[in-house]
């Protein structure tokens, strides 16, 4: 890069005029409110939110038949039962596989599609964006039979691949829109500068744009993971082998037509919730940034 050197001596700086006193910054109204006015409503809200979780924990940890309001004496028998007898160990592995594969595929394809939407103009771009948005209005249940027929034709019924593809396809529209908005926020001149320095488009994207997309990628990836982790319908319909089923389908089988083992159901619920809670605990900062930044432009 060429820089222009100074050829003349710089004039001596004039003595700085005293700065006028700044008006005192007004504290926002919420900051002046007594603390209890903030913490009390939040505390009440938290109690309402946490009571159902406590209830699940209570049923999962106390022995069957106990009516105690504290999980004591504590038992892990319900967890052992669902993990081994009710095959939740296998369901968990399958759900992890489906979740991670959906996350990877959704992120990769959304990245490519989002880049194209952000950086290129093409004739049917607006119609394409509209179609992406409209695809969100179609419930998965409506497409079950056609999807089932397609996967049957491809010999993919009873394969986790069918669920991964279906989940990815349903995640893509929103993910692509989010990623494209993120990429639009990255100044185009940064890429151009990288090209001038000798990068091709792919390298410029990888070196300059990709690191700036981290919040967006985390938001899209985690959303894809959590959605596929919790999604029930495709796994129920496309998987026939007990060894290939996922956690939501397994949870559903804990309630029979006229009998329900509440301890096992609660233990299964905790097993299903823990990965989602962990994912959110780690990524919540990025998730909020990701969704708010990605939602700025349409």
């Amino acid at each position, binding site marked *: 890069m060429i820089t222009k050197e100074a050829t003349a001596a710089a004039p001596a700086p004039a003595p700085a005029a005293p700065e006028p006193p700044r008006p005192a910054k007004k504290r926002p109204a919420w900051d002046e409110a007594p603390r209890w006015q903030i913490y009390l409503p939040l505390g009440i809200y938290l109690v309402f939110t946490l009571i159902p979780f406590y209830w699940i924990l209570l049923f999962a940890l106390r022995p069957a038949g106990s009516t105690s309001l504290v999980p004591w004496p504590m038992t892990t028998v319900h967890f052992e039962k669902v993990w081994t007898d009710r095959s939740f160990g296998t369901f968990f592995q399958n759900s992890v596989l489906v979740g991670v594969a959906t996350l990877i595929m959704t992120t990769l394809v959304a990245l490519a599609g989002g880049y194209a939407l952000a950086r290129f103009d093409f004739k049917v771009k607006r119609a394409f964006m509209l179609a992406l948005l409209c695809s969100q209005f179609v419930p998965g249940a409506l497409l079950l039979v056609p999807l089932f027929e397609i996967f*049957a034709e491809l010999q993919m019924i009873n394969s*986790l691949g069918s669920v*991964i593809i279906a989940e990815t396809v349903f995640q893509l529209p929103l993910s692509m829109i989010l990623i494209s908005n993120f990429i639009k926020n990255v100044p185009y001149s940064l890429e151009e500068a990288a090209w001038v320095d000798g990068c091709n488009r792919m*390298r410029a994207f990888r070196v300059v744009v990709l690191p700036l997309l981290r919040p967006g990628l985390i938001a899209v990836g985690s959303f894809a993971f959590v959605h596929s982790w919790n999604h029930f319908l495709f796994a129920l319909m496309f998987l026939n082998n007990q060894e290939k089923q996922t956690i939501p389908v397994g949870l*559903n*089988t804990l309630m*029979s037509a*006229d009998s329900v083992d509440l301890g096992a159901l609660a233990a299964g619920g905790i097993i299903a919730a823990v990965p989602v809670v962990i994912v959110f605990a780690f990524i919540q900062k990025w998730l909020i940034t990701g969704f708010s930044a990605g939602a700025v432009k349409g």
Partner: protein
Amino acid sequence: MKISILGNSTGRGRRTSAAVALGAVLALTATACGDDGSGAGDGAEGSGKGEIIFWDNNGGVRTEIWKQIIADFEKANPDIDVQYVGIASTEYQSKVDTAIQGGGLPDVGGISASMLAGFAAQGALDPLDDRLGESSLSGKLNKDMIESLRAAGGGDDKLYSVPTSANNGVLYYRTDLFEKAGLEEPTTWDRFYEAAEKLTDKGANKFGYTIRGGAGSIAQALDAMYGQSGITSFWDSTGKKTTVNDPKNVEALEKYAGLFKKVTPAADLNNDFTKMVAQWDSGEIGMLNHNLGSYQDHVKALGADRFRGIPQPTGPGGKRVQVSNPVDGIGLFKTSKNKEAAWKFIEFATSAQSNSKFNESAGQVPAHLDAAKDEWIGKAEPTKLAADALSDGSTSIVQLPYYLPDWNTISKAENEPNFQKVLLGDMSAKEFLDGLAEQLNEAQAEWDEQMG
């Protein structure tokens, strides 16, 4: 297009892209190796060997017992391998319907009377009369259960499902609370109402009864109505008009719905069986109407000595009237390419030994006559009382029209919200029953027309 620079990709970049693409393809290929389990032959008898797939219509709680029966079967038939798939009862119908439309039905499936009409109407099931006639099971299964399944099967007088068990409505009551309050056993409707009132102490969060206001409320309300009115047939003598809105039934429903909030928790408005059973098992509620299926849950929660499960109370003149509970059974799907092996499995699963084992675990009334004489029945009091009530002539059963393809829609989605209105007092019992009757009469007329 804004700009496009065609440069050379670096070798590293190409390798990364290729690795990602290859990884994705391999991952999908690896997960796509499964057998589709369709059994998609064209109804062939097969060799009587090889693999068959069995879909359990009440998977989960019964998975263990089915796995035991399958293990016994595979031991006795080493050439046949049964693949078990447990499906939650709430999702079974939609899964089978999707498989009927898209392909991929199993060889054998659990088929209860309540869903038989729909599957038979779609031509998904193989008639079993001939196979049963030639089988060692012939004459060994409960005739009433066979007739119930035959009647539910779609009007062609064919049997599409071999019965495994019958369920029955049970009135569970807390013996400890009754003793404490000095109340007599609720064997009549009058005693039932008296106990419901006396056991209620809202301030102390104690209630006499828990009513089912959410999913599944209609069957329970019908049971209470017919039980009190003493009407023993769902249709009048012409067979074209239902008796649900008979003035006696209207009066009975008014009285029954009047229990809501008076002697029941207000939350009962949204009670499905799970919530209803859970609050009965963990609270202080005097009585609960459910079926035999939840007996083991109550034993686990309360212990066998703190409650009893008896048949529904008797009505006027000491007569007991109950509505029918759907008989459960096993059917053979038409698309099976290994029907011989599939039938062997059905025969084995409904044999005396397997049927006894299954029903002991489920707490239901066995379909096999020899299994019904087994020792365990005497020990499971509600099952014994239900079996006696169903066979000793003391009880009249009102057969619900499971054969109507619209029955499930009418008795669930369309009328459960209206029943909630009745409980809340926003709709009168007469208005509700007149509406229900109109829908039923229409469905019956359509049915008659289709059947010629």
